[in-house]
């Protein structure tokens, strides 16, 4: 009888742990990865991706978490979408093999390998970015993180987390070599604003 009780407790332990894990789906309407890089050695150029999906999970007690973000590369925009007498716009150029090669690589993906906490909040996400078929480690620093009920849109019926994360990488590490570094800089700064709804 004693061993049965011990067995039941042991079997229930993983369930208790799993219950601590909160799962969130990324809100594609309010989640945008922005990027910034040097242009012609003068100004910094900014752009973003309009279509992003994914999920994240967090276990506040165990201070662990996971993140997976899938970005539709064809949704890249830098605000230059009017040909204005030119053969193609910059946004069209960004979709070709010179940059994101969207026909061959329609998505880029970020997957976490570890989430480090500072106090009760996630602080640093270690993970890998897969871009143009190349996977390299990229770390994200969580600059802002807040969770609570969505009182504005759902009168508190929906629980969400939101914030900002930043990171950087060299695009040539992923084989994106066009114009680097003289025309378009090599160092890319990422700035992601995100929201996730708890499942």
């Amino acid at each position, binding site marked *: 009888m004693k061993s049965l009780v011990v067995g039941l407790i042991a079997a229930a332990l993983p369930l208790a742990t799993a219950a601590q894990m909160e799962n969130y789906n990324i809100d594609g309407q309010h989640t945008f990865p922005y990027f910034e890089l040097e242009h012609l050695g003068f100004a910094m150029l900014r752009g973003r991706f309009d279509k992003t999906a994914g999920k994240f999970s967090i276990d506040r007690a165990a201070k662990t978490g996971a993140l997976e973000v899938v970005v539709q590369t064809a949704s890249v925009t830098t605000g230059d*979408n*009017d*040909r204005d007498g030119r*053969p*193609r*716009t910059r946004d*069209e*150029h960004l*979709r*070709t*093999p*010179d940059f994101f*090669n969207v*026909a*061959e690589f*329609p998505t880029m993906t970020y997957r976490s390998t570890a989430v480090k906490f500072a106090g009760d909040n996630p602080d640093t996400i270690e993970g890998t970015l897969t871009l*143009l*078929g*190349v996977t390299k480690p990229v770390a994200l620093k969580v600059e802002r993180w807040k969770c609570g009920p969505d009182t504005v849109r759902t009168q508190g019926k929906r629980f969400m987390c939101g914030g900002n994360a930043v990171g950087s990488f060299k695009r040539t590490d992923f*084989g994106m*070599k*066009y*114009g680097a570094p*003289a025309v378009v800089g090599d160092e890319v700064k990422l700035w992601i604003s995100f929201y996730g709804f708890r499942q």
Partner: protein
Amino acid sequence: MEELFANPALQAGVAPFLVALFVAIAFSRLRVGGLAAIAAFLVCFYLVTGIQFAPLTATRKILVLAIVAAAIGPLLDFALKPTRVGILLMAGGAAGGALWAFWPVILQKPGMQAWLFGGSAAIALAVMVGFAQAQLASDGVRAGAAVLALGLGVGIAAIFSASLTYGLYGIALGAGGGAFLLPQMIVGKKATAGATFTLPAMLIGGLVAVGAMLLAQLPWYCVLILALVPVMVRLPGPEKAPVWLQAIVFSLYGFVIAGVACALAWPSSPT
């Protein structure tokens, strides 16, 4: 120095031309001066993106096919002497190569578009490689003129289609064609082109055009028009005129049809 090698004029023009010129002159006695075209392409590829094979993207598959063609070309010239059936096999192989290189991209296109793009790619490659081997391989001037016009045409059309990288590959091929022509114009004697020159050159030109269609925005009909460059260069010309004049006339033939493709590649719609 790094800035110099990052200059597109050097990457697609000066460096490929000089290396191709060296190959055309140095290897002409061995009758493999036709390797000038692949040499120009490889120099440009190395300077623009670097020679790498993983991950094996469509662009890198072009590189693989070009190297394989450069190995097969001399073999055909010296050992196998292609027959009519052999030429048909070469044309079929080129079409198959195009489908292999771009199959994952073609599969992503909706039904009719996949057939249109896949069909255009296969037909263009078959026509370019088959016709050039059958009709231009024995005439170094016509073959050189065809590669010069095709390379520049594909390059400019690719730039209009938003891919400067593919544009540079095309222009480098044109530089290789020009480098193969120049010694013939100066010496006044036609060189041997053979499959050594025409097979890799036409394959590269065709695949770069297909890449600009599938990965950038080159209209499908421009690829088919570019496939007519070798046909155009075969039209009757001043056969008894000096070699330099023949080279200019046949190049102009090619530029006319390549120019039509470039004009059509310039988009008429605002976005």
